[in-house]
């Protein structure tokens, strides 16, 4: 064994679109320990509830993260609606699920592209991102934005989708499905890809539970923690929902779980489009959350369970708004998976938790 050396990884690193700093303690080519450091993107966003009223804060909540933007605005709106006892129209619930699942498709395909880039398969990265553009086109047609939609408000949604657009969405998703299966073949059957993922960064079922891991990262270690099973909002109307799970616990399993979740999301969207009832898309919300009223809520974001907590103080301004995001839960698991891995596998393992640093630090 050689002498231990510390190799800094990040904050500026080609594989990371976001700044995360890791101190990798390395002996020869093996990582003994990885110490994550965060704080590069902290803005102090939760404190903004003191100067933005509950309707204005939705635009801030949406900008917690640009990839799961819709999920955050939905999670925040649901929390405040519960706090004020507002029942939103059924059509709005369905529309929220449709946009949220579309966001999951775009987020997972984006991630698969970044993962391909991490193991050095650049043309696969490009193919994933090309496929993703079609989902972004749906967003642009239905909401006007590619990344930030601003369609959720407390009490419902701002825009409706008409039947012609639903037919268009279905047509686009069918097209995506075919091309996506080919991409999946590259990810799940290509031997050079498998060499980089099978057996890498193993996390056992017990470790996953002990470190409270969430999302596809935990589901790849056979932990069933999909918050969609709770049936909040429109998810309660699904005929049948079985989370995608895998027991292998390595990078390959995590790629597989996300790959299958995209197809599952497409099925959910199709079911929702078939079932969506006619009616209003929003109710008027008046008044303010009562002083001392508290409410919590969970949303299954593309990266895992995100927890929201809000407390009112009788005025239009919330007393406290708190989110616990999936990546902050998964960082401990990532450090564990990194211990003992090969230096060349660090990229892949860091990416398989799908780190979203701007959610984590806010």
């Amino acid at each position: 064994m050689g002498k231990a050396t510390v190799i800094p990884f990040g904050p500026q690193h080609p594989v990371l679109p976001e700044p995360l700093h890791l101190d990798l303690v390395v002996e020869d080519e093996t990582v003994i320990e990885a110490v994550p450091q965060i704080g590069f993107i902290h803005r102090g966003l939760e404190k903004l509830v003191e100067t933005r009223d509950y309707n204005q804060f939705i635009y801030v909540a949406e900008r917690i993260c640009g990839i799961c933007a819709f999920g955050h605005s939905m999670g925040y709106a649901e929390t405040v609606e519960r706090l004020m006892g507002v029942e939103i129209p059924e059509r709005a619930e369905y529309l929220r699920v449709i946009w949220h699942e579309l966001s999951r498709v775009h987020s997972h395909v984006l991630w698969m592209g970044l993962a391909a880039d991490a193991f050095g398969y650049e043309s696969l990265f490009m193919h994933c991102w090309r496929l993703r553009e079609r989902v972004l086109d749906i967003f642009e047609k239905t909401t006007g934005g590619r990344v930030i939609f601003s369609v959720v408000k407390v009490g419902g949604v701002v825009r409706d989708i008409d039947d012609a657009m639903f037919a268009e969405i279905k047509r686009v998703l069918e097209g995506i499905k075919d091309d996506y299966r080919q991409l999946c073949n590259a990810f799940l059957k290509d031997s050079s890809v498998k060499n980089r993922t099978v057996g890498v960064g193993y996390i056992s079922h017990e470790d996953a539970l002990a470190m409270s891991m969430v999302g596809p990262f935990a589901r790849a270690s056979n932990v069933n923690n999909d918050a969609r099973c709770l049936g909040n909002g429109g998810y309660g109307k699904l005929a049948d929902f079985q989370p995608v799970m895998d027991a292998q616990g390595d990078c390959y399993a995590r790629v597989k779980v996300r790959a299958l979740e995209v197809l599952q999301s497409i099925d959910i969207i199709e079911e929702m489009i078939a079932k969506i009832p006619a009616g209003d898309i929003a109710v008027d919300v008046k008044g303010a959350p009562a002083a001392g009223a508290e409410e919590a809520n969970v949303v299954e974001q593309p990266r895992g369970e995100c927890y929201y907590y809000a407390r009112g103080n009788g005025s239009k301004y919330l007393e406290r708004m708190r989110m616990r995001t999936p990546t902050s839960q998964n960082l401990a698991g990532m450090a564990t998976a990194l211990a003992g891995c090969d230096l060349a596998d660090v990229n892949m393992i860091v990416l398989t938790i799908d780190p979203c640093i701007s959610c984590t630090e806010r």
Partner: protein
Amino acid sequence: MTFATKSPWVIHYDASSCNGCDIEVLAALCPGYDVERFGIVNTGNPKHADIFLVTGSVNERNIEVVKEIYNQMVEPKVVIACGICACSAGIFHDCYNVIGGVDQAIPVDVYAPGCAVRPEAIIDAVVQGLGILEEKSKALQAQKKGA
């Protein structure tokens, strides 16, 4: 400008962006908009880069990183602030941990506003940046001749 005399390499750093602008920077490079066909390549090495794309506003912790990347880049170089947070800190301007736009840390040549900035706006900014790069390069050569 009717033709590009140089294919600039870009480096991207996320100062404290929400990811929205970052994925649009990458989307501009990928097949949907495909600026790679003009030889514009995303590099991870500041020493190889001509254009520095910064997204997000600066805070106490990352201001040093932004300055460090800028200092490591070789002259001539152009800085593009991508997104409203990088231009003026946007909706986060009154957050306690936000100093302001990227121009608080390093000189910015082109501002590309938007929340999130659209790939078209980034491409437009890069094209403007190319013109500035050429001017800076000429100024540098004139300086060398004069010396």
